[in-house]
């Protein structure tokens, strides 16, 4: 009928009287059977070439369970079409075939791997709903723990707060300085070109002062802290959850909310305003450098004008956002850490989510502040 000659195995099938004889020689293993698998399908097409298939496997040198399973599936299919198979193999190969026939399960089909659209939407909705409920539970526990702090100030973990301040804020000052300084430079440079054409050089101070103090410094600082410290909280607490450190703490009577969660949140709420102040200074410094190089405005003149044109309220508005941003970044980072499940992938997923969600929430919060401050007229 047909034959196949491969590098490692060859197969000859021919009709002999009322049977089909299939001769195989060479290596029949998980890799080589891929070549003959499609050929065997041809043998089982309608109408069947014969009612009996004789497999002559005496010439096979290597034989593994994948090959045995191939023969098994062929036999089952042949049986369903009313044909039978006979195997002639070396004893040790026959043992492998027998082992495959001796089983405790039904062969399942190929796994269904895609959900349909409706199921996907439903599943996503349920997951989101549970996520929201978890977040509410987290906020509830947070305020309960805060109450313990307030009612019993001795339980405040000052040492942990200091550690969190150092790790999440002080150590971030370098990158904050660099980013905000460059933002100041870029902003000043772009506006310098425009202002020069109108001869309005000195207004660069007003422009920079108000936009940086009110909006840009707080926002940039929050984004950097969310990317740097929020994600660190999520990963750190996520790993502690996987290694069961959180459970260990609970059994020893250390409430993780008092020892891990609140110290980090308080640390960022205290430090965010200071970070914003630092960011203000660095961004203005960047602006000053460009103003003196591009527009010939000396540092003295710049500061004079700054005093005159930029009201204190802008500075305070910027700073006032700090604790809120700090709370959002720390709370989301820690919440995401607590959501980590017992596998490594969920650390990655939750760390990413912590950054994305924190930045998103910071921007929403900033927009709300804008509306409030505009409405009360400052």
């Amino acid at each position, binding site marked *: 009928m047909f034959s196949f000659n491969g590098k490692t195995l060859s197969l000859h099938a021919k009709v002999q009287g009322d049977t089909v004889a299939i001769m195989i020689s060479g290596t029949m*293993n*998980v*890799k080589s*059977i*891929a070549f003959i*698998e499609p050929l065997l399908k041809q043998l089982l097409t309608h109408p069947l070439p014969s009612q009996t298939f004789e497999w002559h496997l005496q010439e096979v040198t290597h034989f*593994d*369970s*994948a090959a045995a*399973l*191939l023969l*098994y*599936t062929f036999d089952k299919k042949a049986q369903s079409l009313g044909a039978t198979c006979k195997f002639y193999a070396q004893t*040790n190969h026959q*043992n*492998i075939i027998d*082992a*495959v026939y001796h*089983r*405790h*399960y*039904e*062969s*399942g*089909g*190929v*796994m269904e791997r895609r959900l349909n659209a409706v199921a996907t939407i439903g599943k996503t909705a349920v997951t989101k709903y549970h996520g929201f409920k978890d977040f509410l539970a987290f906020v509830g526990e947070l305020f309960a723990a805060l109450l313990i702090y307030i009612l019993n100030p001795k339980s405040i973990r000052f040492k942990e707060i200091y550690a969190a301040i150092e790790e999440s804020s002080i150590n971030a000052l370098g990158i904050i300085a660099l980013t905000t300084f460059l933002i100041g430079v870029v902003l000043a440079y772009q506006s310098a070109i425009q202002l020069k054409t109108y001869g309005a050089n000195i207004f660069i101070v007003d422009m920079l002062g108000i936009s940086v103090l009110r909006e840009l410094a707080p926002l940039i600082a929050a984004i950097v802290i969310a990317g740097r410290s929020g994600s660190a909280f999520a990963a750190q607490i996520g790993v502690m959850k996987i290694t069961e450190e959180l459970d260990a703490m609970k059994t020893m009577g250390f409430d993780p909310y008092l020892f891990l969660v609140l110290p980090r949140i308080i640390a960022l709420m205290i430090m965010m305003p200071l970070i914003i102040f630092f960011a203000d200074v660095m961004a203005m410094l960047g602006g000053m450098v460009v103003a003196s190089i591009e527009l010939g405005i000396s540092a003295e003149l710049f500061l004079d004008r700054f005093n005159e044109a930029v009201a204190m309220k802008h500075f305070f508005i910027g700073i006032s956002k700090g604790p809120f941003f700090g709370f959002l970044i720390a709370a989301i980072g820690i919440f995401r850490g607590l959501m980590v*499940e*017992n*596998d*490594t*992938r969920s650390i990655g997923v939750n760390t990413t989510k912590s950054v994305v969600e924190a930045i998103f929430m910071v921007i929403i919060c900033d927009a709300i502040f804008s509306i409030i401050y505009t409405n009360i007229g400052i």
Partner: protein
Amino acid sequence: MQGVIEANHIVTRFGENVVHEDINLHVNRGEIYGLLGPSGCGKTTLMKEMVLLQRYQGGSMKVLGYDLNSITHKKAQELRQQWGVLFQFGALYSSLNIYDNIAVSLREYTTISEALIAEIVSYKLDIVGLEQRVKEQYPSQISGGMKKKAGLARALVMDPKLLFLDEPTSGLDPISAREFDALILRLRERFDLSIVMVTHDLDSIEATLDRAAILDEKRVVAEGNLEMIKATDNLFIKTFFKGR
């Protein structure tokens, strides 16, 4: 007769810290071979060197006839498809379900149809004694013992000639541990396997090992069957096999 693993004068150092000074051992085809010794003696390190996860600093090692000192990338890939490794905690890929964990090598290294892959995965789950329904579950959803069995099914998927087991019975309850021993013996019978394992479990040692090497003081202090090992005059051996 050529052994499946031959290690000659292996030296391993981590910086100043010498782990192996002069390790010689020989694993024969078809046997279950144990690497035993006190903790910190470098059993796991030695096994990692056998499976190309770690380099040794001196000596030579042959695995399934491949000389690890001069192995090329291509040969190493070839060798890696001829052994299976079971890690202590299964080391299943957490982003894949059990079915995909077992099927991953088949998809990567062969061109057989998905229907036959499904068939092979089901069969391997069956021989390690797992129910078919765990296929859809993820590693985080199953127990430690099941993870080990699934890891073993994954190690067996290419029908390897050589199987490495790192503490296969640790963390299992005594009944599951004895079942695991029986499973190992059955697999050797059925697949003509050679097995190298690191273990501390005395019952497991008595039940499964044909030969073993005792690593102590940076050397192999005894190699052979259990009677020969127990007859060796060494403090660790005396305490370890006390009363057996």
